[in-house]
């Protein structure tokens, strides 16, 4: 083959194309032809897509090994499909763009165009994300065959899932901030549709709307950030582009700019850009203070919760921040904010999760908490932290999907009941679910050799290292990262506690089920994905940790290559961190066992004793209430007042003006009194006035 990248390019287009094709086929044929076989196109499409993604991963891996450092800064391959817009000469060349262009031996033109190409690109980061997304969604699709069986909108579910996977893969593939935003919102739309899948449930419809709106608030910041990027750097493309006038326009994350960190604008502007991007990431990844939509999103079908609201979509924020690492690198302050948000979210969500009684909501809060961990890792700004964050993203995708699917299995068995107070001791009735769930719990809690342990441990290590490192250009009198380290440790304890609380409540203890339910083990289509995911949850951490393949592979990503080059040597040993976290986790599990295995009388006493804390946790720290009180309520009231203003004041004014002629007419009407002489007099006076003005003035 003449072009070594041709393979990659083909695969690159296939990954999103297959799910889209599957979605279209399902949507067209689903309602009439396929009916209960509507899953076939999607399962097939996602399966193929997963295979293609893995091939792509291998191909990228093979390719990136053979590259020189400089060319590592470019994406491994990209394909331009068509031009979205190309508006010439719209922006006076900003200094940052001019500087970079001079670096590229191009004379900066006076005006820059606004070119947005639909370009797909792949690099190790993307390839990893693609593999994870397609693989998990393939498993979830298989699971959904069993779970959604018999639903009246069976085909619609699979069409949405196909559409979602298309959008998600595109999100990680595109090479442009605008298109990133496009698919950022597109996955949000799929999430909206899937949360509201059972639209007849008012809660589901409301939750869908809430998710969309909170995401919109995040997107609001994201859009502002994109505008700022455009104005600062003169382009929205990641890659370097050729101008029609000749010369190279360096992309925001292109080879030229990555090669020289000084080409990134530092200072307040960088911080503003990063914080705005962070707002977007917070919205999508459900970070404090925009996390409120995720627990409500559990109204959607459980496979959706597993796929979108645990494994894939919510990690888009993490992906975006990793992708924009060079931008964040220019602003240590912003990185610190990322870390703080992450740490805070991790802790708060864990606190809330401790007292929830809805199994899916516990998992939702744990998702938020784990995403907080990832943000914490990214917030360290070191290669160690970022790769730890991505690592956690991968492991989390598997074990959280596993947990959700397990919860779905329970729901399936109990006829939709998910409230932990209504059942217990399902261990015997549902052995497969129970054991896979346990593996998931161990992974989530971070017990030694399961996946969560390795990734979480690395995040803790990265934070610990950052707390004791000297970073150029960053001075803080307050030991932020030290604190965050202890927050993370505390969160690890809480995680272990609430995870096993849920497990013990659901699967241990006396067997108790709701009256109407006939618990049974789920069908094979559901247990098979559980088993596969459990295998991954158990093994993937150790597998990836064993070699340093993951780190080095990830470091080949253009966005990270520069950073990786700066970090000298491999990370040191962090045995004490690992020991500490393991101890903490074991204490957590032990406490959970103490309180929830057996009689469960102690826990009520504890709850009474810690009444305020318990209430705060149970009421989810009153986030929804506060938002209602501070934002939604006032806006609603304002809207109502304005509608009154509109109806009475503005329209009243208009009507007043409209009435003026009528009133004037009423005033003048008596002059039409039918008296001949009054007319004559009026006529005479009129003539006089005319004559008078003519004569006297």
């Amino acid at each position: 083959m003449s072009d070594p990248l041709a393979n990659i390019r083909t695969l690159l287009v296939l990954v999103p194309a297959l799910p889209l094709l599957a979605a279209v086929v399902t949507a067209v044929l689903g309602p009439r032809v396929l009916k209960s076989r509507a899953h076939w196109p999607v399962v097939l499409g996602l399966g193929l897509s997963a295979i293609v993604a893995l091939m792509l991963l291998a191909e990228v891996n093979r390719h990136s090994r053979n590259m020189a450092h400089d060319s590592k800064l470019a994406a491994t391959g990209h394909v331009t499909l068509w031009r979205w817009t190309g508006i010439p000469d719209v922006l006076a060349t900003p200094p940052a763009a001019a500087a970079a262009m001079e670096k590229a031996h191009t004379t900066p033109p006076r005006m820059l165009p606004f070119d947005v190409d639909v370009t797909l690109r792949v690099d190790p980061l993307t390839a990893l994300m693609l593999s994870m997304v397609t693989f998990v969604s393939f498993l979830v699709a298989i699971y959904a065959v069993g779970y959604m069986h018999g639903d009246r909108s069976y085909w619609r579910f699979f069409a949405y899932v196909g559409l979602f996977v298309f959008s998600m893969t595109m999100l990680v593939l595109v090479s442009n901030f605008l298109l990133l935003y496009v698919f950022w919102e597109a996955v949000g739309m799929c999430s909206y549709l899937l949360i509201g899948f059972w639209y007849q449930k008012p809660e589901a419809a409301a939750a869908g709307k809430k998710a969309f709106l909170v995401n919109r608030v995040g997107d609001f910041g994201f859009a502002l950030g994109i505008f700022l990027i455009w104005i600062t750097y003169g382009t929205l493309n990641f890659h370097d582009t050729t101008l029609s006038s000749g010369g190279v326009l360096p992309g925001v994350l292109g080879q030229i700019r990555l090669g020289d960190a000084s080409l990134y604008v530092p200072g307040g502007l960088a911080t503003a850009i990063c914080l705005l991007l962070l707002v977007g990431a917070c919205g999508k990844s459900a970070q404090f203070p925009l996390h409120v939509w995720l627990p409500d999103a559990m109204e959607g079908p459980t496979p959706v919760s597993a796929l979108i609201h645990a494994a894939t979509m919510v990690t888009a924020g993490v992906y975006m921040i990793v992708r924009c690492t060079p931008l964040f690198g220019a602003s240590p302050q912003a990185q610190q904010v990322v870390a703080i948000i992450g740490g805070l979210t991790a802790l708060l969500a864990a606190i809330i999760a401790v007292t929830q009684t809805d199994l899916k909501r516990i998992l939702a809060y744990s998702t938020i908490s784990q995403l907080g961990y990832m943000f914490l890792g990214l917030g360290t700004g070191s290669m160690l932290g970022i790769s730890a964050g991505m690592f956690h993203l991968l492991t989390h995708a598997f074990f959280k999907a596993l947990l959700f699917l397990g919860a779905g299995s329970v729901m399936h068995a109990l006829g939709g009941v998910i409230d932990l107070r209504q059942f217990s001791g399902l261990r015997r009735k549902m052995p497969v679910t129970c054991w896979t769930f346990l593996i998931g719990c161990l992974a989530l809690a971070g017990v030694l050799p399961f996946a969560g342990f390795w990734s979480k441990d690395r995040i803790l290590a990265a934070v610990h290292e950052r707390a004791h490192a000297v970073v150029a250009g960053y001075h803080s009198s307050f030991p932020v990262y030290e604190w965050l380290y202890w927050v993370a440790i505390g969160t690890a304890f809480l995680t272990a506690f609430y995870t096993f609380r849920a497990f013990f409540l659901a699967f241990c203890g006396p067997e108790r089920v709701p009256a109407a339910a006939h618990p049974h083990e789920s069908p094979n289509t559901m247990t098979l994905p559980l088993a596969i995911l459990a295998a991954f949850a158990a093994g993937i951490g150790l597998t990836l940790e064993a070699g340093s393949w993951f780190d080095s592979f990830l470091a080949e990503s253009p966005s990270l290559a520069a950073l990786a080059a700066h970090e000298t040597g491999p990370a040191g040993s962090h045995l004490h961190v690992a020991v500490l976290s393991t101890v903490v986790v074991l204490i957590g599990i032990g406490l959970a066992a103490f309180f929830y295995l057996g009689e469960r009388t102690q826990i009520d006493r504890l709850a009474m004793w810690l009444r305020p804390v318990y209430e705060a946790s149970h009421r989810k720290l009153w986030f929804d209430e506060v938002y209602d009180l501070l934002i939604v309520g006032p806006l609603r009231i304002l809207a109502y007042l304005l509608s009154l203003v509109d109806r009475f004041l503005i329209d009243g004014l208009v009507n007043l003006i409209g009435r003026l002629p009528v009133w004037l007419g009423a005033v003048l009407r008596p002059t039409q009194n039918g008296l001949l002489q009054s007319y004559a007099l009026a006529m005479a006076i009129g003539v006089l006035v005319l004559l008078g003005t003519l004569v006297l003035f």
Partner: protein
Amino acid sequence: MNLLLATIQETWATWTTHWHVWTQHVPMLQSRLTWGAILLALGMWLLLPRGGRRGRAAGALLCVAALGVFASRLPFLGDWSHQGVFWLLAGVTVVAGLGTISMRSPVYCALWFSLALLGTGGLFLFSGASFLGIATVIVYAGAIVVTFLFVLMLAQPEGNAYYDRISWEAMASALSGAVLVFLLSVVLADTFNSPRSTLAAQAPAAPALAKGVLAPEHVATLGGQLFSRYLVSVEVIGVLLLVALVGASAIIMLQGRTDARGRAARGAAEEGSPQ
């Protein structure tokens, strides 16, 4: 006596000086025409029948004074005989006009009106339009006014109807009439007295007049003009007269027929007019 006169003169001079000082910002007040118009308005207001008998004499006096003011503005006609005759005729005309509008009895109005017509006729004669003067007197005073009197006798069995004793908006009417006169006089004064006026140059010379409108064979020339240059107009007017004749007859003839219907309809329609 001289002392008295001197005193009066002095006082007058003082007051006029003061007056000029006061009114310098309102030049209009310094014009005789303004005062003439004001006097005329007041006078006509008082003259118009307004129910009571108050002040009609004063009104008449004011009106005459106003006329005097207006007359005092007028230019001299060249010699006193002409001027005297003109003033006499003009005075009769205008005073008769005032009488026309101020008498309570319509019959008196008509009589005053015919006097005004006589005056007008005299003015026509004075200006050399002898045919018109005669025609006015004959046609108007002789025919039209007499017809009016007939109608009055038909329609006005009683002398003083209440509506003859009141006027409609006397003040406004009198004021607007006076203002009209004032404005017209101002225009005239401006036109005739302005240094830029070219009218003086257009004034006809006596010989030209003698060959023109003052030609000795006045009526013949007029007739010749009437039936040559203005023939079409004459025909039109003739038709108009015929139409009027037919129309008047038709109105009277239809009256009887519509009467009954009209009364019936009126009973329903007219809700609350006086009487």
